[in-house]
């Protein structure tokens, strides 16, 4: 974005707007309105917010990256900072790009910085809002004032924006909407000095139905589409909103989501529903996943299909409950006692939450084992716009299979994947099965036989090997061969892709792959790695004692390839483009 005095708007493709205030100022809601507007105007969007971990609130930000083209990250730096207070100004001035703009509340911010060609524009948000609404409302509504100003500066579709706001406030008292609109109009009309106006190029998503929401909401929808009707969980941030959504949505589908007394009960109830023949889901965040581990080993042993979601946050322990981290990968794959194979998947962005839930349901059923989905705090809470899923293609009708089983039914056949006969199934041979966590023979009888334990261990492992061979190799983004291959998983998807775009534009031969299947990994990754001089695994976790992040460790162990190196960090934030680009440049120079 460049500033201009001319009356005709400057055209632009991208804008990053950072709103900095306190959590009670309603900046999340206007950020949400702007994000939703992006979806309705064929644009891409990615948001980023910080939430104070105390209920009483505190400083908080909401950043919106709007774009006419693909938006892959929430933005390293802001084109515009909106500062509600002096502390917001002081803390976030450095996030403005050189030559950017700061809109600040001139009634709150008194000490200004003049540096890097940044334009400071003071507007009395609070005072002007009070004047617009009338004294009694105090400063409630200044967020709407600010949104009016942003709408005017960026020539956003006012009609659609007002429509979104009305729908949101329409459920409340009439005066709420009236005051919001008064503040909005005042902000819209307020003269912002010599800033000029801007207009987005036409978006790339013409003629599509676009949705915009956060990852947790969409994951819940994906679970319903996958056929999940039952499950249980215990509240924990940032997982909770999935269980809240399922609790209120599932009754519409005749299902039940149970709030359990703890995570031990939650996973057990979910295994109960799965044993009863349903596709069921439990979920949590790091500490809660640890509590579920004993039961998850059981589910591997007893070959129970179920979905487990872990919305990762900063650990260990209570750690950084409202920050992002990818430090539960090893816990997800190996966290239980015994050799307990299970499948681990991770969504790459908000949109993917829908499809990964369906994939998890399909794999759980097909391989009769637990499937863990590793989401994270960033994906769970940020808003993105994406194409509406076609339910005719993706909808899975739940099915309870209690058709009578033939005389030769075996719950644990050595040469086939287990298909349990749930309660209610007539056993034509007269012998009813007992599902068990003791090592067992093919009929489910407890067996301490050494040979049987080896054979059953083989069986439980081999189904994952079969899956790894069926998985398609990930597509290489960028150059198919070259100097550096970046490898990512989860929320690093967007920043890695954007980094490749920049590095290629600087003339570097670099490529990237993204892994959605983390366990088992697709077979044949070595053929991709062979085409690059260096492989750099980018992840938000610690390099540990041996100098490698969690995925890098698994890749090194499975491929024994000394080219594999790690780019790790644990600062509670998603990767910035600059951080990745700098690291690759360093690798290229070494």
């Amino acid at each position, binding site marked *: 974005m460049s500033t201009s005095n001319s009356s005709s708007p400057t055209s632009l493709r991208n804008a990053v707007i950072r709103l900095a205030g306190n959590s009670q100022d309603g900046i999340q809601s206007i950020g949400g309105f702007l994000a939703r507007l992006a979806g309705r105007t064929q644009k891409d969007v990615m948001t980023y917010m910080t939430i104070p971990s105390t209920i009483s609130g505190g400083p908080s930000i909401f950043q919106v990256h709007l774009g006419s083209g693909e938006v892959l990250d929430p933005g390293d730096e802001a084109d515009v900072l909106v500062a509600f207070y002096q502390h917001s100004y002081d803390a976030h001035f450095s996030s403005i790009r050189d030559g950017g703009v700061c809109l600040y509340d001139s009634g709150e911010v008194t000490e200004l910085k003049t540096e890097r060609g940044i334009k400071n524009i003071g507007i009395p948000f609070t005072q002007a809002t009070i004047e617009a609404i009338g004294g009694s409302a105090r400063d409630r509504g200044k967020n709407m004032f600010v949104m009016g100003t942003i709408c005017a500066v960026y020539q956003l579709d006012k009609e659609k924006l007002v429509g979104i706001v009305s729908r949101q406030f329409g459920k409340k008292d009439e005066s709420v909407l009236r005051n919001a609109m008064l503040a909005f109009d005042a902000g819209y009309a307020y003269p912002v000095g010599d800033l000029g106006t801007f207009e987005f190029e036409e978006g790339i998503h013409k003629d599509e139905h676009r949705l915009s929401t956060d990852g947790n909401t969409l994951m819940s*929808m994906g679970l319903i589409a996958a056929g999940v009707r039952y499950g249980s969980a215990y509240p924990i941030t940032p997982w909770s909103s999935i269980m809240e959504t399922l609790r209120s949505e599932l009754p519409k589908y005749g299902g039940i989501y149970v709030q359990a007394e703890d995570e031990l*009960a939650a996973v057990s109830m979910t295994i109960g*529903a799965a044993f009863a023949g349903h596709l069921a889901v439990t979920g949590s965040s790091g500490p809660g996943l640890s509590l579920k581990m004993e039961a998850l080993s059981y589910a591997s042993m007893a070959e129970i299909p179920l979905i487990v979601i872990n919305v990762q946050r900063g650990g260990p322990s209570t750690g950084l409950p409202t920050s992002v981290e990818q430090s539960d990968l090893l816990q997800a794959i190996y966290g239980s006692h015994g050799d307990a194979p299970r499948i681990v998947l991770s969504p790459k962005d908000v949109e993917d939450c829908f499809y990964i839930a369906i994939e998890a349901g399909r794999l759980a059923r097909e391989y009769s084992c637990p499937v863990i989905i590793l989401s994270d705090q960033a994906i769970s809470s940020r808003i993105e716009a994406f194409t509406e899923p076609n339910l005719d293609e993706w909808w899975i009708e739940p099915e*309870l299979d209690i058709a009578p089983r033939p005389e030769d039914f075996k719950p644990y056949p050595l040469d086939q994947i287990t298909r349990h006969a749930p309660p209610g199934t007539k056993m034509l041979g007269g012998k009813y099965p007992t599902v*068990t966590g003791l090592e067992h023979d093919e009929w489910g009888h407890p067996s301490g036989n050494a040979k049987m334990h080896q054979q059953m261990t083989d069986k439980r492992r081999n189904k994952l090997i079969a899956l790894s061979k069926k998985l398609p190799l990930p597509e290489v983004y960028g150059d198919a061969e070259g100097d550096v291959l970046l490898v990512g998983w989860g929320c690093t998807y967007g920043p890695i892709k954007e980094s490749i775009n920049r590095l290629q534009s600087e003339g570097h031969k670099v490529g990237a792959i993204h892994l959605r299947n983390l366990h088992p990994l697709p077979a044949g990754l070595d053929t991709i790695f062979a085409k690059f001089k260096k492989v750099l695994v980018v992840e938000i976790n610690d390099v540990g004692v041996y100098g490698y992040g969690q995925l890098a460790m698994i890749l090194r162990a499975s491929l024994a390839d000394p080219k594999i190196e790690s780019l790790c960090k644990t600062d509670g934030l998603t990767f910035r483009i600059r951080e990745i680009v700098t690291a690759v440049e360093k690798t290229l120079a070494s």
Partner: protein
Amino acid sequence: MSTATATEPASDPAQEKLTKKILTADHPTWCPGCGDFAVLAAFYKVLEKLQYPHEKIVCVAGIGCSSRFPYFVNSHGIHFIHGRALPLATGVSLSRPDVHVFVFGGDGDGFSIGGNHLNHAARKNIRLTYVIMDNYVYGLTKKQTSPTSPEGFKSKTDPTGSIDRPINPMKQLLASGATFIARTHAAQVKHMMEVFERAILHDGFSVVECLSECVMFYNGSFDDSTPRKGGVYDIIDESQHDVGDDIAAFKLADVPTPGKFGVFYEVDRPSKNELEQRWIDSTQAKLAGKSQKDILRDRLAMMR
């Protein structure tokens, strides 16, 4: 309630009559003389009487000697992990209103590692029947103190005698909000069968503490309530005790060892199963027959 399209066969008029022979599965691995044999025999008998469809019977257990129970009943069953049988059974009960859920386990499984689950399954009034085979000791792990071991009991973890106050199962269950609470004895087969049958017919969370001697690690533990060993088996006289009166039930629970036997408390309160179903029904009534796919489609469209 079941939303899934059940591929259930038409009801079979020629359903084989349930007999002890049909219900018998693997030969129990319990020590000869273990009280649990009698509990199993009583359960067979009650099932013979009730004649539920064979495929609708589900036995659930955690870990312990007593928790081996599902292997010995030829029915659908699941042998789960230590202490978590109740939440697992909750998942079965809430998602499958068509089956009968029976949970078996020991005092350690139910009152120690699974203690919190007992409180919550009880207060939520989950529709199932739970039999706690209480032997006042950890049998499977070979004689450690249990939460019901009396003070002074010598075990491998209390070599000079237990110093911790045992719980009072009846009081604990009364406080938790269970809607059917009874106590019986594995050596009193007739009484045990009567109590089991009443528990099973109760709509809601029914729980029975059944004293069941561990002859291996706590021989003679229940002699004082076994008449043929000189003890007194003191059955609650329900013409004198109002089973709907929880204060009176607390008083009965205070009677010193060997205490009272029979139904301490029984009350009608809607089960969670029923309350959830009411919520489902009222929610679905508002949707006026919309297909499930369309419900989701409309929900997604709200994100436009």
